[in-house]
């Protein structure tokens, strides 16, 4: 194989080389008792192979179905949890229930004379804040839909400094301290409940 030879000649030389290599190897192979060796291995394998019961062998429906059921049991709740949209109706009902309770347990009843609040009221208020804040976080950036609309009205019904309104409209929640303070005032003044009720009545009309 050199510069002077043609490609066909080169390849013939390569083929000769392959034949030579092959011949040596075949001589080696023929000296081995291949059939006996391979049959021995096959026999050994057949003996030692552990076989699963027929009903369990793939693709028997039993393991396939049980596998599928297992996957569904894990995947479906996970999928629902991860991808389900926020349940606005539930949030609204929860909000209303908490409002109703808040109105029932007025701050004045527990703290009028001593200026202290009952632990129940504090706990209720805290639950309310949490609920409202989570509702806000989940719906604050949504421009349509019943709850965000109502919630915006509720929130804007309380006087807010201009820059806060802008921030809220641009989808940035006010910091939690400000929000908590506002909600606290709203509870105190029952303004939140009134506004919610008004909005509802207006919509029903």
């Amino acid at each position, binding site marked *: 194989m050199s*510069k002077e030879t043609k490609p066909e000649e080169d390849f013939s030389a390569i083929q000769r080389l392959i034949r030579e290599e092959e011949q040596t*190897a075949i001589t080696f192979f023929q000296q081995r008792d*291949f059939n006996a060796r391979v049959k021995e291995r096959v026999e050994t*394998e057949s003996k030692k192979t552990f076989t699963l019961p027929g009903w369990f062998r793939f693709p028997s429906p039993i393991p396939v179905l049980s596998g599928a059921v297992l996957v569904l049991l894990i995947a479906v709740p996970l999928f629902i949890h991860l991808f389900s949209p926020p349940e606005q109706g539930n949030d609204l009902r929860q909000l209303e229930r908490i409002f109703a309770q808040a109105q029932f347990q007025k701050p004045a009843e527990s703290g009028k004379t001593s200026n202290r609040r009952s632990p129940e009221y504090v706990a209720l208020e805290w639950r309310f804040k949490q609920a409202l804040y989570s509702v806000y976080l989940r719906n604050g950036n949504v421009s349509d839909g019943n709850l965000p609309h109502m919630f915006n009205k509720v929130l804007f019904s309380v006087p807010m400094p201009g820059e806060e309104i802008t921030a809220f409209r641009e989808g940035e929640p006010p910091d939690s301290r400000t929000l908590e303070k506002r909600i606290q005032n709203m509870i105190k003044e029952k303004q939140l409940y009134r506004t919610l009720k008004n909005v509802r009545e207006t919509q029903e009309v």
Partner: protein
Amino acid sequence: MKRTEEDTKVFDDMLNYKEVVFRICLGFSRNPQDAEDLTQEVYLKAWRKIDTLNDTNLLRAWLFKVARNTCLDHINKMRLRKLFRQDMQEEREPRDHNGKTPEHRLEHRQQLEMLKKAVGGLSVKLREVFILKEYGHLTYREIAAAVGIKEGTVMSRLNRARREVTAWMRRKNNE
């Protein structure tokens, strides 16, 4: 794994093609001992899957397909290990002096090493077609069935593979 007498008979028929299978394995492994081990693997796999052979007329083509797949699996497994075995292979080459002079033997070995590298340097697509043809002596139709491509594609790939191997060998010989 229950096998019938018919399966055993088919398996015995398969053993008639052991040398072709061995040559294919030699093309992929480039070492007679490895090729023998690989041939055994091919036959073991064929035995395990014998119930998937629906038509005994296609036995040859089916066996070559098993051989091709086994060899490609082997190549993937050995890719890293091969690097460390280069030296060992030198010692394991079967001795076949045939009265050649030491110089001739050395040159022959060098040429074989180069050929090994040239074939190893081909892409998998070209290499498998090259090996099945040049080592296994399979027909275009058999190669097409084993690889799962059209006969025309076999021809064009083979042509490209031959040109690449020739060019590589030429370049190395002229260096």
